[in-house]
């Protein structure tokens, strides 16, 4: 009997052609500015339409609304190469725009919502943000309190959101609100234009890393939006959010693997150039073996992540695999970032170095989009524990 075919090469010639273009774009047009954008605390708004024009915001979105309708492996190639911009902040901004705040509109939105919000977001003309977390509800999404009351044909929104990426500049939000009872059964999603009266960016949060990504606290004081801006069914929002988290967590795992990979590549090069005690530091066995461990474990994390991507790309349930991939990849990236920095000696501690920026930026990955602890919860529960 013939063995089953397991030669698993997800990337076709077209995926690779796309990958090469994104890499060159990231290295030539983005990376040279990574440091300046961090210092300025933001990247130029013009990058949204620039990404839109290159088709990077609508990779797996419906062509009817300006997307390319491609499979998830194009998103994987994109996220992997976006890391070469050497700006985690920019990566966050763009991935929120194309992969986190908008897929749910494509899935559930009415034609009006797709015309008003989705299409201009994919062109990069309107900036999108995903607003779920609140001051008193982060990991525990079911505890959100921002409320939307129905008054006639309108929804009246009051409350506060925090940690919202793209938040200070967003033209609209994919917003989680409480429309019903306490707990997960009373949550809805709405598309929320930020030019309505009563909406306010209360403050910009200064962070340890992702310095050029704007992260905001938002305040809603009796904001009126049309009730037809509900996304999908009323009070079904918790399920939509959990579904949306799958893509967000997967892209975090992909980013972690690619980010750690780039740090190792950089370290190998640095190890050939930098000398101590008369020899290149990369020739010390202590370091060669350390990096051998990192490369081996990273390869394991990569294939766990690809397995999760494969299930997700084929529309299979992948909660367990995606949670495992996010947990393993994002935590491993911390160890590799620590050693990559250590390997650079004093230079690793210098604010402007690539390795220091990566160390700052990668630190977010085990926190945002569901912490590592929450991933452990999901994995253990999926095993019936």
């Amino acid at each position, binding site marked *: 009997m013939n063995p089953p075919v397991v030669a698993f090469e997800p990337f076709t010639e077209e995926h690779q052609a*796309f990958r090469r*273009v994104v890499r060159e774009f990231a290295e030539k047009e983005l990376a040279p500015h990574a440091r300046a954008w961090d210092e300025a605390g933001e990247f130029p708004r013009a990058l949204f339409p620039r990404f839109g024009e290159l088709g990077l915001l609508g*990779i797996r979105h419906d062509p009817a609304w300006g997307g390319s309708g491609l499979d998830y492996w194009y998103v994987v190639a994109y996220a992997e190469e976006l890391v070469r911009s050497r700006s985690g902040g920019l990566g966050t901004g763009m991935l929120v725009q194309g992969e986190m705040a908008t897929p749910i509109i494509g899935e559930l939105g009415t034609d009006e919502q797709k015309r008003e919000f989705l299409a201009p977001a994919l062109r990069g003309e309107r900036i999108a943000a995903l607003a779920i977390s609140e001051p008193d509800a982060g990991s525990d999404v079911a505890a959100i309190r921002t409320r939307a009351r129905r008054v006639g044909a309108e929804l009246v929104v009051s409350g506060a959101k925090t940690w919202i990426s793209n938040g200070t500049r967003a033209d609209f939000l994919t917003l989680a609100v409480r429309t019903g009872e306490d707990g997960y059964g009373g949550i809805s999603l709405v598309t929320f234009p930020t030019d309505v009266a009563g909406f306010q960016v209360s403050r910009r949060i200064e962070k340890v890393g992702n310095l050029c990504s704007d992260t905001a606290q938002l305040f809603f004081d009796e904001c009126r939006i049309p009730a037809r801006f509900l996304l999908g069914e009323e009070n079904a929002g918790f399920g939509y959010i959990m579904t949306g988290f799958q893509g967000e967590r997967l892209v975090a795992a992909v980013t972690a693997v690619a980010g750690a990979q780039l740090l190792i590549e950089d370290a190998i090069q640095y190890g050939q150039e930098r000398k101590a005690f008369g020899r290149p530091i990369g020739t010390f066995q202590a370091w060669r073996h350390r990096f051998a461990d990192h490369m081996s474990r990273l390869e394991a994390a990569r294939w766990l992540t690809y397995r999760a991507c494969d299930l997700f790309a084929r529309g299979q349930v992948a909660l367990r695999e995606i949670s495992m991939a996010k947990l393993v990849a994002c935590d491993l990236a911390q160890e590799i970032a620590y050693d990559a920095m250590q390997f650079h000696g004093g230079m690793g501690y210098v604010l402007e170095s690539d390795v220091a920026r990566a160390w700052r930026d990668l630190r977010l990955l085990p926190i945002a989009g569901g912490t590592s602890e929450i991933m452990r919860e999901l994995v253990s529960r999926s095993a019936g524990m």
Partner: protein
Amino acid sequence: MPLKILVTAKRVEDPESKIKVKPDGTGIVTDGVNYKMNPFDEIAVEEALRLKEKHGGEVVVASIGADKSMTEIRAALAMGADRGILVKHDGPLDPFVVSAILDKLFEKEKPDLVLLGKQSIDDDQNQVGQYLAERRGLGQATFASKTESLESEAEQKKQPGVVLAADGKSLRVVREVDGGLVTVDVSLPAIVTCDLRLNKPRFASLPGIMKAKKKPVEEIVAASLGVDLAPKVAVKKLSEPPKRQGGLKVADVPELYAKLKGEAKVL
């Protein structure tokens, strides 16, 4: 007046790759080397697209080499070229042979303009455009450049640096030469080779990459063209440039000046 433009896209080693010479000097170590379109050809493709966007017409991209050169043709199609021609040839080539093949393609396509990179970054020969012009008896404008900078407004708007005359019969080309720029008019059909500062090539968009899959590419076996494929120049040996020697520290400016003048003889 719409222009039919033939443009070249050679597959070369990616300049970002680490290039090592084989110990026996017969070639380079190809393991781990990435390939891409010759950067000067990218500039030629970009210029062709700008001319087409302004005047209409067609951009036909040609590559000569092994089957893998299809990747570079697709890259040019993804940028916006209309169709491709892959001339398949596995053996060694030299500028003389390449120009003979392009001569045949010219005969077949009858373009108004051929745009080429001024040289390819692998062998740095800088001869193909000149040979081709000579073979066809056409005017040539080499090292096309432009007066304004790569950050200028015209550049942002992707205006062509090569300017078509109002009567559509000639091109005005600013050439980069030692110590300055020379402006020439060349009558069409013409051969133009592109220099580094002519334009900043665009990145292909994702929709562009997907469209490129469906654009026609004609495959021609070089041997069927009836040209002599035997190179006139053979590479005898490759060797690495000498390793850079360590620098030296000087105490003060007068010492630096003395060394630059006396030893380095650059002043």
